[in-house]
């Protein structure tokens, strides 16, 4: 590329490079998410124990060197079950976010950029989706689709369509009213070109930040569906189900509920922390 052409492209400047070091909490959050992701992709690297088959002899052992998280009622290593459960939870959350992001953003961008009757109709549909409390909407979708990890994930995704649609629409409207979009029309840009070049890039930052936030919330909701028994069937290791199964031993084996719950909370908290960093970066 010639030197003259190079000047047309945005360049990282000294000021951007000298930006403040990321906060410690953000570093920690990224680390937690990285570990969870590694668990999800390569669980066997992190544990040699079998997450499904247990030894009755070792049932209900408190945390120890051999079993850092202890064992459950059938003698399965709890840590192994948590590690192998990461895959189900994270992939489920990813599916949920994808469903909400794609469908919701499409609805919102369409409504916001066309306006008029289409906008009105799409937003009434969104109103209806919003009117049904999230969990009930998810349960209705599950009744329609049947139980299972993927269906639970889709159900959670459906509940977030309305939020994505509203945000995307309001962002598009805000950007459309901006002076620079008017200036782009003024310099001869066609509707689609201005939409593609100016409106979408400036609208979608906030939408992506919401997607990051929804990721944490999707993990929580999927685990709730798992806990209620509509997600993965036993003995699949799934975080919500894991906690549900150990409920009967709450009086005797504290680790069975406490430790998996802490893992879920840590992952969700980290996802939310990263989401707020994404929001700040795209604001």
């Amino acid at each position: 590329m010639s030197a003259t052409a190079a000047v047309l492209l945005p360049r990282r400047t000294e000021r951007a490079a000298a930006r403040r070091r990321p906060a410690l909490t953000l570093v920690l959050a990224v680390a937690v998410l990285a570990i969870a992701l590694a668990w999800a992709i390569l669980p066997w690297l992190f544990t040699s124990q079998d997450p499904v088959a247990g030894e009755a002899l070792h049932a209900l052992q408190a945390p120890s060197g051999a079993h850092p998280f202890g064992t459950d009622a059938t003698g399965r290593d709890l840590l192994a079950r948590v590690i192998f459960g990461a895959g189900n939870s994270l992939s489920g959350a990813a599916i949920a976010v994808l469903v909400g992001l794609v469908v919701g953003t499409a609805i919102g961008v369409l409504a916001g950029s066309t306006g008029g009757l289409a906008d009105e109709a799409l937003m009434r549909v969104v109103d209806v989706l919003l009117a049904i409390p999230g969990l009930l909407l998810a349960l209705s979708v599950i009744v329609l689709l049947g139980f299972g990890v993927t269906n639970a994930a889709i159900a959670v995704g459906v509940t977030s369509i309305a939020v994505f649609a509203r945000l995307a629409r309001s962002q598009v409207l805000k950007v459309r009213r901006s002076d620079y979009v008017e200036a782009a029309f003024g310099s001869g840009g066609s509707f689609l070109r201005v939409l593609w070049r100016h409106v979408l890039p400036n609208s979608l930052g906030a939408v992506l930040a919401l997607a990051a936030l929804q990721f944490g919330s999707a993990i929580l909701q999927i685990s709730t569906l798992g806990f209620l028994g509509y997600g993965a069937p036993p003995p699949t290791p799934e975080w919500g189900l894991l906690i549900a199964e150990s409920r009967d031993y709450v009086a005797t084996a504290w680790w069975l509920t406490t430790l998996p719950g802490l893992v879920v909370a840590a992952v969700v908290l980290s996802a939310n922390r990263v989401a707020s960093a994404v929001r700040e970066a795209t604001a």
Partner: protein
Amino acid sequence: MSTLLTIDDLAISYRARGERHTAVHGVNLELQRGEVLALVGESGSGKTTIGHSIIGLLAAGGRIERGSIGLQLAGGDLDLAKLPARALQQLRGARIALVPQDPGTSLNPVQTIGASVAAPLRIHRWGTKEAIRRRVLDLLERVGLDDPERRARQYPHELSGGMRQRALIAAAVALEPDLIIADEPTSALDVTVQRRILDLLDDLRAELGSSVLLITHDLAVAAERSDSIAVLRGGRLEEVGETRSVLLDPQREYTATLLADAPALTDAAPRPERLAVEPFVMVEGLVHEYGKGTDAFRAVDEVGLGIARGTTHALVGESGSGKTTIGRALAGFHTPAAGSIRIGELDVLAERGSRRLRHAVQLVSQNPYASLDPRRSIGQTVGEPLLNLPLAHGGVRDRRVLAERVATALEQVALPAEVAGRLPRELSGGQRQRVAIARALIIEPQTVVLDEAVSALDVTVQSQILDLLERLQRDLGLTYLFITHDLAVVRRIADSVTVLRHGRAVKTGTTQQVLSSPQHEYTRALLDAVPSPDWLRDARRSRPTQHGQLEVA
């Protein structure tokens, strides 16, 4: 005469992004009882920071590093820089009061005007409920609000900007403070309202014997209203002294530059009249309404004007006068209800939104912070019209040609070529406005609509941009429609003027005709509103600055 306020070696720092940087570097000031001290400077000069430090309202992260702020009261001397928070709180609103900058956002929107004005009285336990109520009504009457009973029951959004500022002044003087800090008290108001608010402040100061610290960016306001003046730059004191002596004989080059750049004070002779045989831009019978049916509001009412090729026509008026609506109609951004607009042979209304229209006329809008896409580089922004309008001069498909054209356009507005790789947020306001002008000019339009294009800029930057616009007009033969509220700027740049009020043209003519012998009462009111004390104008007329000569040439 006794001294009320003595600021000694005051230094203030702010923490931003984890680093401390100094905003005020050791400033010394003195304010006498009953007098007005003007703090003058451009944005970032530290004038507001000093004002806020006196009243103990530094923004989060702000800290007084050293120095003292001495307040000499009847009861004894105090150092505000070292006073405990609670003691300072006792002084605020009682001995030191603030008249804020923007009356639009400075009143609690869910509180009645009466409650807002009563607040300082109630906070300082001035008297019984009934006594306070009566005092509030007296105050509202004193600041010139009609029907105080009704005003006291109204909410801020039901009042005009000028009325809100009156209410804020009423609250500020409620406890007859020794010191009133007026932080740009009129910069958010229309010009004719500005003068009346400043008059009111003057009257109240004289009546109460208070001192006023007037913080302003407007040298003309300072010249007209202050006893002494302090010129600040980058947190340092450039010059301080008695107002007349400082302005008549500035010791520092910076003060002289500020004076030369202040449009109200440059008494440049109007441009030589360039008589046009026939107008190039013609607007006739323009009507525009907002709303429908009985609620319809005529923003523009039968306005016509003509602009000769290569000249500048100014559209002057206060907010709501319809000037922006006309400019946007000319630039093809909306269709008026009636009327016709022609640019040369081109029928603008028939061509609405067409590429031919974009080639003929471009718009530069007021806010250079909003008019550039934050995600696109300056080069991409400036080059965009060439990509959108491929008919322009052989079409530009080749990146290299495009980059060269962009570099030329930037050079034209006196920006270095490497700016092309930057993002808008890395540029100053003046630089951004240059970019917006470069974007408008790159497809070589014949006509440019400049909508308050210099209003958001500091005076020195404003002056540079006006120079630039004049040079471009000479070099390229551009025709400008220059929309502004500032008659002082009009005097400097326009060949002809239309004065608008409530959507009607009250006066149209050459700048000379309209401004030198204002026929219409409203035009006279607008002219009077431009602060420009005679002593200063006379002195400057007899001794024009270099800058002034340049303008005449």
